[in-house]
């Protein structure tokens, strides 16, 4: 459904960005993208979303209906929470908006402006905005980085339930290895500056998974090894 062939996008005379990334994604797969800060994860999503056209190599995406959640909330400051969530919707679909706001724990804040939200609340608003249009492909850039551990687990369940319902294809950038292990069918590990694709790990366990599964723990050890970290450093 998505095939990426030797895509490169570099900045600063090839000192930063990403180089020669190739992979392919099947419909309904959840792909995790891990890597240290600055290795080009956001850049990769920007290329795939069509926002950045200055890349070399080629990729083909068979779906048109692509949703994206940026690393920052990017809410419209002049719109209330509910208007922000409804931003990409066509027509008046208040019921769906309110249901989703309830799911991400923001009911009661519908009429607030972004300036009155905490970081985590802004991020949840942005999640709701990305999910409400139910796109066929979702590009998620560290979607849960600003929320607490418990809310994070709930939001991960939300992603899984959407995936189950719509068989959504997802590319999920994350710094949380456990999150990637819990949600993803495959994990791409980027490394270096500029980033290259260092490793692709497949996780066969069916979803929903047990977060304490010892098999997952062994994959985690492998990931840490690829990232050159000792296990204790997690």
């Amino acid at each position, binding site marked *: 459904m998505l095939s990426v062939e030797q895509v490169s996008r570099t900045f600063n005379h090839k000192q930063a960005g990403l180089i020669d990334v190739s992979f392919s994604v099947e419909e309904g797969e959840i792909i995790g993208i891990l890597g240290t800060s600055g290795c080009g994860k956001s850049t990769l999503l920007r290329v795939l*979303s*069509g*926002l950045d056209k200055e890349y070399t190599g080629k990729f083909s995406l068979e779906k048109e209906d*692509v*949703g*994206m959640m*940026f690393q*920052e909330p*990017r809410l*419209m*400051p*002049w*719109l209330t929470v509910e208007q922000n969530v409804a*931003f*990409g919707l066509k027509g008046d679909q208040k019921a769906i908006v309110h249901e989703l706001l309830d799911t991400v724990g923001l009911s009661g804040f519908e009429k607030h*402006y*972004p*300036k009155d939200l905490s970081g985590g609340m802004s991020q949840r608003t942005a999640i709701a905005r990305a999910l409400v*249009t139910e796109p066929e492909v979702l590009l998620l850039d560290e979607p849960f980085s600003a929320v607490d551990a418990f809310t994070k687990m709930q939001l991960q369940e939300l992603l899984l339930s959407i995936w189950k319902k719509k068989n959504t294809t997802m590319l999920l950038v994350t710094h949380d290895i456990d999150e990637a292990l819990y949600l993803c069918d495959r994990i791409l590990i980027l490394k270096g500056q500029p980033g290259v694709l260092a490793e692709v790990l497949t996780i066969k366990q069916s979803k929903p998974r047990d977060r304490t599964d010892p098999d997952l723990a062994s994959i985690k050890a492998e990931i840490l090894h690829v990232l050159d970290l000792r296990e204790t450093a997690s």
Partner: protein
Amino acid sequence: MLEQSNRALKLVQLNKVKTASKKPRSNRRLLLGSILPVSLVILWEAASNMGIIEAHLLPAPSAIIASLYQMVLEGTLWGHLGSTLTRVFAGFFIGTFAAIIIGSLVGYLKIIEELVDPIIQALRSIPSLAWVPLFILWMGIGETSKVTLISVGVFFPVYLNMVAGIRGVDRKLIEVGKIYGFTSFQIVRRIILPASLPSFLTGIRSGLGLGWMFVVAAEIMGASKGLGYLLIVGQNTYSPDTIIGSILLFAILGKLTDWFLKVIEERSLRWQDSLANQH
């Protein structure tokens, strides 16, 4: 002209900071702020009555009010007020409208900017009052030349702020629209215009201020009605009460119309994370 519009801009910013005060404190402010002017007026009145100030140079406040009241009784004041207000509003709307259209195009389309902006910048550096003889030559001394002059005065601050506002729109927000497949028109309407609203409102407030300045110029140049005309009448008939009365009316009208825009500004910018919106 540039200096003036800068000053108007600064004034707007000052006003914004002022509104940061809370309600209970605003009564106190009003009280404190009126002590000085009220005592000055009382002093002035007393000094005039005692003959310390010569009435043919500076008449007593009561004499000024009386002469204004006389014009109300004669029914002439409304005519003067009406024609000045009509000129300001007509010039304000025409100038603002032109600035919105041209400013949006220049701000949004690079090619139009390269085409149009240099000439506008060049025109801007002409002190606007220098246009007066030309406008009178072209359009005669009637309403058209006056309204045109006021429109020119209003145009530049609105245009500059409009362009700056559009330029300053966060690219990251525009990308959100692109992700949703918005057309250029949708991006302008749903992202660029609302995002540049604060700057635009600053622009129309300084534009209105300049509109009031230019109406005085236009009416002094030659008119048979209007507050500026009253100024000239006062000068020619040696009646300082008429002059000061008109100045007073200019001040009141200018303040009222600016207050009106300020209320609109506050209403529509409640979302802004600014000093003025702290509570």
